């Protein structure tokens, strides 16, 4: 296929986007040589990648041709699926790394030849480590095993053994060893040590006393390894027993028996029990004795520190230990990071103390210059305020995506390392993740902190981030939509009075019907057991007995408490298309249902939703579940009006998460909508319907019954798919909505 027709095909797939022609040409030209089946398959993936990131899509096109050398054509979609996951956790950089080595990163796993990845063992290993430590001790990927006291680092992949079970066991041993290093006090400060540098770890200060601090450090770590292994044998005997056959098979450095240094020999002793014979050399003899002793009984690192002093004297000037790699589970000592964390913690603690102290300090001001100072202060305040406003305006002008980036940077400054899976890919912090061709379409959304100065309605709570279902890749776009709860400013007008007047008769009828629903507590007569005697039944029973008839034993009255215990949320579409009669009828329907609901004890909430694009999904609470049907609520109903688009799924997910905190026997979510889910961006058609359907399935899985009332004439085409055959109703005449809605509610809950 020639380049022109490829380009044409590409533009057709990504319409309505019009990417630069030279970008497209550059990405497509290497593909021209492929045969048409390959090309079809490669192009078939574009709709799944393009909306996620344009840069990623171009990178994919460049990499897809070479990838097909290692992959079968039908494996490509699975590769893309993994690629998108990788993009979401590791950003563009992670995705590029993934694409660069198809064989190692993907094909081997696919054929079952690959090693075991940390991401796969984490669900099992993380709670295990938390249980060991009694606190959250995140497992993060790194080149070598290590710990900085807040996090345990493990290799991202272990492919040492052919059996995955053995690889897992090694992971478990590594994690347990790192925990044990913390628990056994390997990193404790040496006693009576002069601290030369405050910023260095005390152990580093100790090592720097020697001519060759690095060798001292290696010796110390090895001696401590012996002790930690002994500690593990004592604390986790089962683990050490199962790991025993594994230890001799772990890799060791140095192979020529003659050239082995003291560390090599000790490592052989530890792993294989292959201790050097006595009389080898004073250093080795002494080291063996010390290692065995410290492994036997020591409860802290003091013996190892003493041993290091002793051994460093014996270490010949020409004997270097640098060639010996640490044991695989032993990993590296991250002393400096540990120290930094410790100092940060200390600083935070001091800061908190200072803050609490300043709060309690009374403000003392000298009376003489108070006036001048206050004047100054006012000026300064004004200046500050102006600066803040400017910053806010600048913030507003940023694309939502850039805002999310800005926030990410501030998160990087936080003292605790965030449990960021992107570290898995050898990256330290997220930077590449956010590279993208177009601002609004890529990268996980970050919840922005609310700030003042919004035009319509204040943000009421912290924004919440939700995933979005992408049917094309059969997976979630993670942290995709930002949902804000906004206040709906109450509106005072005659709408409520007019509605109440217009539907006077109907409301009375509804209330009567709803009263019948209300059961609450009632006495049930003629029961076998009960709180009190049913005297009518008793008299009957006695007379029956006297008359020679078999007397009944149902003689009691029981108080039956049939609580309806229903919580219902009405989710109202506030999209632009509800203007005019539609919106009016929806509002009237809400007033009617509220009036009727007041005679019931059912808890109910009303929320409106609208928004534009994934970063601004808005939820307008009209009445919360525990709120009374007050004047403010009525005024908020009046304030419901057409706004922007219908991105329904985030709203449903938000309702699901709100419902999760509600205890009720029946939890009902009634959606009032006038059409298909749709948003300003490419959220429309099948994608939107599938996402909404998935959100509804999630709700059902949480025990919520969704139901939709729609006035869209085309509803039958997609509603049954989204909600299920019986879970929606189409109302033909919009004017009937107020009457029908209460009726529907009554049937649904009785």
């Amino acid at each position, binding site marked *: 296929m020639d380049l022109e027709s490829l380009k044409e095909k590409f533009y057709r797939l990504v319409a309505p986007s019009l990417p630069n022609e030279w970008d497209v040409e550059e990405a497509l030209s290497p593909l021209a040589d492929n045969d048409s089946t390959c090309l079809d398959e490669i192009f078939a993936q574009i709709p799944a990648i393009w909306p996620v990131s344009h840069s990623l899509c171009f990178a994919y096109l460049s990499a897809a041709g070479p990838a097909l050398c290692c992959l079968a054509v039908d494996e490509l979609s699975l590769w893309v699926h993994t690629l998108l996951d990788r993009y979401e956790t590791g950003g563009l950089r992670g995705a590029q790394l993934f694409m660069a080595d198809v064989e190692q990163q993907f094909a081997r796993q696919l054929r079952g030849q690959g090693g075991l990845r940390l991401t796969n063992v984490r669900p*099992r*290993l993380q709670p*295990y480590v*938390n*249980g060991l430590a*009694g606190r959250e001790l995140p497992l993060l990927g790194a080149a070598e095993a290590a710990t900085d006291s807040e996090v345990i680092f493990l290799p991202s992949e272990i492919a040492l053994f052919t059996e995955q079970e053995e690889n897992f066991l090694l992971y*478990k041993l590594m994690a347990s060893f790192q925990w044990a290093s913390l628990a056994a006090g390997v990193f404790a400060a040496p006693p009576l040590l002069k601290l030369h540098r405050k910023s260095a770890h005390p152990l580093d200060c100790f090592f720097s006393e020697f001519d060759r601090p690095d060798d001292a450090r290696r010796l110390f770590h090895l001696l401590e390894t012996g002790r930690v292994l002994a500690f593990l044998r004592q604390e986790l005997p*089962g683990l050490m027993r*199962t790991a025993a056959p594994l230890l001799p098979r772990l890799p060791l450095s140095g192979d020529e028996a003659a050239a082995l240094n003291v560390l090599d020999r000790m490592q052989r002793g530890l792993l294989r029990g292959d201790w050097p014979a006595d009389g080898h050399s004073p250093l080795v003899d002494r080291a063996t004795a010390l290692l065995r002793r410290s492994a036997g009984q020591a409860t802290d690192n003091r013996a190892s520190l003493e041993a290091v002093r002793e051994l460093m004297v014996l270490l010949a000037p020409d004997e270097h230990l640098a060639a010996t790699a640490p044991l695989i589970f032993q990993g590296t000592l991250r002393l400096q990071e540990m120290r930094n964390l410790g100092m940060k913690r200390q600083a935070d603690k001091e800061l908190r103390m200072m803050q609490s102290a300043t709060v309690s300090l009374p403000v003392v001001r000298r009376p003489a210059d108070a006036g001048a100072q206050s004047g100054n202060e006012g000026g300064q305040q004004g200046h500050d305020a102006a600066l803040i406003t400017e910053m806010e305006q600048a913030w507003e002008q940023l694309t939502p995506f850039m805002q999310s980036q800005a926030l990410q940077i501030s998160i990087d400054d936080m003292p605790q390392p965030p449990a960021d899976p992107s570290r898995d890919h050898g990256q330290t912090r997220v930077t590449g993740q956010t590279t993208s061709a177009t601002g609004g379409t890529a990268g996980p959304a970050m919840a922005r902190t609310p700030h003042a100065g919004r035009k319509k309605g204040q943000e009421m709570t912290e924004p919440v981030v939700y995933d979005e279902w992408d049917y094309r890749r059969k997976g979630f776009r993670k942290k995709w939509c930002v949902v804000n709860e906004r206040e709906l400013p109450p509106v005072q007008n005659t709408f409520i009075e007019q509605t109440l007047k217009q539907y006077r008769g109907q409301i009375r009828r509804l209330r009567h019907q709803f009263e019948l629903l209300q059961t609450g507590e009632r006495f049930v007569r003629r029961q076998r057991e009960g709180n009190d005697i049913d005297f009518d039944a008793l008299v009957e029973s006695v007379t029956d007995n006297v008359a020679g008839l078999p007397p009944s*034993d149902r003689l009691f009255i029981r108080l039956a408490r049939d609580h309806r215990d229903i919580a219902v949320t009405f989710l109202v579409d506030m999209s632009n298309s509800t203007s005019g009669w539609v919106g009016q009828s929806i509002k009237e329907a809400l007033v009617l249902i509220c009036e009727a609901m007041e005679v019931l004890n059912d808890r109910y909430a009303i929320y409106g939703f609208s928004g534009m694009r994934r970063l601004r999904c808005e939820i307008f609470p009209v009445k919360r579940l525990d709120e009374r049907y007050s004047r403010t609520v009525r005024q908020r109903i009046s304030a419901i009006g057409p706004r922007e688009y219908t991105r329904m799924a985030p709203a449903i997910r938000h309702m699901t998460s709100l419902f999760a905190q509600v205890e009720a026997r029946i939890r009902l979510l009634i959606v009032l909508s006038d059409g298909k889910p749709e948003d300003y961006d490419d959220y429309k058609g099948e994608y939107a319907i599938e996402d909404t359907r998935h959100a509804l399935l999630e709700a059902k899985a949480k025990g919520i019954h969704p139901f939709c009332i729609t006035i869209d004439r085309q509803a039958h085409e997609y509603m049954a798919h989204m909600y299920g055959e019986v879970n929606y109703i189409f109302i033909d005449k919009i004017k009937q909505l107020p009457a029908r809605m209460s009726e529907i509610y009554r049937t649904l809950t009785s």
Partner: protein
Amino acid sequence: MSGRQMRIDEYRIEEEPYYLPTGDELAIAEAAYGDGSPLLLKGPTGCGKTRFMQYLAWRLQRPLVTVSCHDDLSTSDLVGRYLIRAGEAVWTDGPLTMAVRAGAICYLDEIVEARKDTTVVIHPLADDRRQLPIEKRGELLTAPPEFMLAVSYNPGYQSVLKDLKASTRQRFIALSFDYPSPDKEIEIVRREGHLEPELARSLVKLAGMTRGLKDSGLPEGASTRLLIQTGKLIGRGIPVKTACRAAISEALTDDRELLAALDEMVSSLF
């Protein structure tokens, strides 16, 4: 009267139950008993609240009437009701009334599970009046000095909807229970589960690990009771890992990943 006497005697605890005090709970409880104050025991499930009550009842030589509360428990279930026997209406005391009459200890287990309107009936009994009105009989019972009221609840897993009313809560002397310290717990598990000290030590260590998993989705870890049950299984010849799986892991969670992690802990320890 003799019938009633016989019934209450069934609630007497003849043999000394095993209880290892973890603090000054016994002294406080005995002082409260001497004062006629009611007791509120709170703590996680299986940490020894009920056993403590049994031990206290044995020490004080009072019968122990235990009522497990549930949300269908009515006032009549506690106080009593009329029953029809041979064409006659006969009043039958509920457990609370029976305990008051006999000067026993009435222990309402998991009090928050009962409906709030039911728990109100204990209010006059739980303050200095120490009275129990029996409306249906028009009777006002005054509790003898030997009577004691004790309630328990688990603050850990109840929802906000199930909390004690302040007016109920503020009538009690409260004792907070938690899992015993490792040494004591080892001793308890060893004795009650008839285990070797080493095995008891490992079981307690395992329990300690499961109790650290709050953030990983396990709101409550393995209780002392579970450890004792595990010990008993082991004593009956079940292999240690199987016993741990049956009595601890599976009892704690249904989550597959957590189960796997618990299995890892078990296989590390034994």
